[in-house]
């Protein structure tokens, strides 16, 4: 894949539809996601937030019968183009999941594993330290790098997963409810970390927690099922976060953010 620098946008969708068989789970999404910003995707359960997020790094490819129409452009290149390797896409666009999922290995190996597979030839110790520092975990684990990742707390494990993601230096980090399994303090740590990460990375986060979206993101996309009863989700409003939470344009966004939806 080429690395053509786009001045403003990290990734863009054009008339994107995501299908499971004949069912369009997500319809007609047109979004331009700004570089080095945090974009939150919010909306009620079952409206296609995670499906859309997973489309950004072709994770939906693992679901049989899933396919997309339209385009997702990274540096102007369609991620679903014929000659694109999905593994390469996932290297460029990393993902952090709801439940921390470290490998059953040492803290050190959790970081080096992906790098090794990707043919990293540099100094592994440096990479480990740099990645753990980047994930605000270094000071807590520097003396026990050879210990199992499972010995860490949930919040630490999630930061280890973030460190593992940034170790392969992606362009974009996708986060699917990254703090929903964590206690409030660990949640705030992750949120603080996101502010640090956006200096170098573009972040797209799916969250059920509206206050979290309001606290951490620069832009917010509001998803909702289409009015036509098709059970297909779409982005009904995409704007600066401060706008979405103070003066949204769409009545459905207003109802959702003020807790009057449903």
């Amino acid at each position, binding site marked *: 894949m080429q690395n053509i620098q786009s001045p403003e946008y990290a990734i863009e969708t054009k008339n994107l539809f995501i299908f499971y068989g004949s069912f369009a789970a997500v319809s007609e999404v047109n979004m331009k996601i700004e570089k080095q910003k945090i974009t939150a995707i919010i909306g009620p359960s079952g409206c296609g937030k995670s499906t859309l997020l997973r489309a950004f790094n072709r994770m939906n490819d693992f679901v049989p019968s899933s396919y997309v129409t339209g385009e997702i452009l990274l540096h102007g290149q369609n991620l679903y183009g014929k000659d694109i390797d999905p593994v390469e896409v996932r290297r460029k666009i990393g993902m952090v999941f709801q439940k921390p999922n470290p490998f059953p290995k040492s803290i050190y190996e959790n970081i080096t594993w992906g790098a090794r597979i990707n043919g990293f030839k540099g100094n592994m110790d440096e990479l480990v330290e740099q990645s753990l520092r980047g994930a605000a975990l270094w000071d807590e684990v520097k003396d026990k790098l050879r210990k199992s990742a499972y010995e860490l707390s949930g919040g630490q494990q999630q930061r280890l997963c973030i460190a593992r993601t940034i170790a392969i230096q992606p362009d974009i980090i996708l986060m699917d409810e990254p703090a929903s399994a964590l206690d409030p303090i660990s949640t705030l740590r992750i949120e603080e970390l996101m502010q640090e990460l956006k200096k170098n990375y573009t972040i797209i986060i799916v969250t059920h927690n509206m206050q979290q979206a309001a606290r951490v993101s620069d832009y917010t996309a509001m998803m909702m099922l289409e009015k036509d009863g098709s059970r297909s989700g779409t982005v009904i409003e995409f704007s600066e976060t401060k706008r979405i*939470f103070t003066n949204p344009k769409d009545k459905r966004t207003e109802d959702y953010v*003020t*807790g009057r939806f449903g």
Partner: protein
Amino acid sequence: MIRKTFEHEIQHVKDEVLLLGSMVEHAIITSVEVLKKRDIKGAEKLIADDKEINKKRFAIENQLMILIATQQPMAHDLRLLASTMEIISELERMGDYAKGIANINIRMGEETLLKPLIDIPRMAQIGADMLHRSLTAFVKEDVEAAKAIPAEDDEVDALYNQVYRELMLFIIQDPKSIERANWLLWVAHNLERVADRVTNICERTIFIATGEMSEIKTTDDEFETK
């Protein structure tokens, strides 16, 4: 419709704002009535009553803080609660103007009024009426009314200019009347400010309903520019 409890709390806050508004309205009208009668006891009571206005304002502010902390209001709810915080502050300041008039009344002591009060009670009446309707517009989120009411401030400004000219004539004719003229000028000034603050309430109402923050233009200030 979910969030019934929150809706109920919001309604309660609006009711309390109306109550505070009626206390202030009463204070404005009464301050001029007791001045007209040179009723010192009435003026002292007004000053004591102003403490109740301040207490009520703090009680509403506390309620608003609790709602913001516990309900995490967003969008329209957030604009409503934040703007209500501003509106109660405007009301409290209007109460201070009435108290100021009561203070002037007391400081005048045995002195008689320089002239019979005609335009000044009219200013109080218009200001209190504007205030009343601005709060109705606030509760109903009536944007049209909120846009129309501030224009009436021009009438209050015109009356203020008239009072000003008249008092200047008294001073020119008899420089010894300066102090008595000055007292009445301050009374008129306080009433003129009441109408200005009504405009602020209307601006907040428009913001709550539309999300657009803009300053409503009336005449620049109380003085004629020509």
